[in-house]
């Protein structure tokens, strides 16, 4: 266990530095890229907060869908291949749509939560 600041608190400090010190000192393309970097910092902070819970939920849904154990990466790969080949039963296809929708929602909760409500 590390001392405080936590990883998220450190990133928050970097984000505040970009916003309060850098952004006001630059313009044009560098100002644009500073805003991009601020968004990246915010994304990583949300991933630190939500990532473990999302990964667990994703894996549980995949295990239920295929009725077998495996890593998230392995099962997600199997799912993509099964959708492509048409190997899923109707019941599995419905579960796959629900799982994929939930997974993409989780991606956006990390990358761009505003997108879900716009």
């Amino acid at each position: 266990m590390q001392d405080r600041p936590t990883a998220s608190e450190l990133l928050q400090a970097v984000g505040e530095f970009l916003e309060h010190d850098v952004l006001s000192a630059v313009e044009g393309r560098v100002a644009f890229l500073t805003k991009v970097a601020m968004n990246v910092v915010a994304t990583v902070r949300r991933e630190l907060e939500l990532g473990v819970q999302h990964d667990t939920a994703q894996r549980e849904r995949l295990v239920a869908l295929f009725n077998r154990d495996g890593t998230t990466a392995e099962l997600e790969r199997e799912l993509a291949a099964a959708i492509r080949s048409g190997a899923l039963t109707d019941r599995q296809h419905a579960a796959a749509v629900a799982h994929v929708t939930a997974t993409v929602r989780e991606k956006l909760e990390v990358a761009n939560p505003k997108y879900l409500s716009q």
Partner: protein
Amino acid sequence: MATPVAASMSRALRHAFGSEVSVDSFRRVSGGASRETWLFDAHVGDESYPLVLRRDPGASAGHTERSTEFQLLAAAASAGVPVPTVRVLLEPDDGLGVGFIMDRVDGETIPRKILRDDTFANARPRLAAQCGAILGAIHSVPLHTLPSLATQGATTQLHQYRAILDTFGEPHAAFELGLRWMEERAAGLPSGPSHVGLVHGDFRNGNFIVGPDGIRAVLDWELAHLGDPIEDLGWLCVRAWRFGNTANAVGGFGTIPSLLDAYEAAGGRRPSDDELRFWIALGTLKWGVICLVQAFTHLNGLVRSVELAAIGRRVGENEWDLLNLINGEW
């Protein structure tokens, strides 16, 4: 990239203007590394002309050649499509690369300004209908007036984008669902020679020059091809081009009925909702795959950039849009 040689530019322009021309004020507009756009001014006697040079120092695959773009702009202009007037096609003797020189049209191209600035308040309610009318004109360009263009129908494009997706070796279950949904429907789209037309290929908010009066010119014809004209209507409605104005399905500024009414009035064939949905879905997939390509341009070390890296996390937006489209939303 070096600034174009002024003496060569003057020589290339002398024929078009029929007298001595001097040029100055060159500035490069951001764009692809292999494709250049330069703004500059030409002076003939007391008159000044704001002009644009578009050129490729080398050949680039997957895009139409500059000389093709030159012929295309001429054909589009003859059919009443608002495009910048092309002055000169560069000749090898000019020593300026492959390209052409066209008039610079005054106005705004940045989507967020077009969608939010007061300057365009009166133009905005008219833009969707204007897009419909312009697309009607583009799609009625007689094919015999066109340079040689590739034919890219729905099935070709589905294969093409699946192949690109596969090069990354990453599972994208949402794209697989979307591809499957589109593959099941592609064969049911209207087909046959009467359904083939000139497709602009990148007709969207961001590629229009807009003034307080509306769209003044349509730019970026480099993805033009022959195909199903409804592709252009679908691409225009992809959510990425709404720039946050999600409720306005057409470019963030208008509605689908106003687009389609004007398209039909300009001689276009009104697509069914299912057809339009297919093409919005394909456009959404294409943009998602392009975002992946950009992220891997960074990851592979070709161009290291925080901007490109961040785009990798925008793929999910396209996946979300694609799932919503196949679920019946716009």
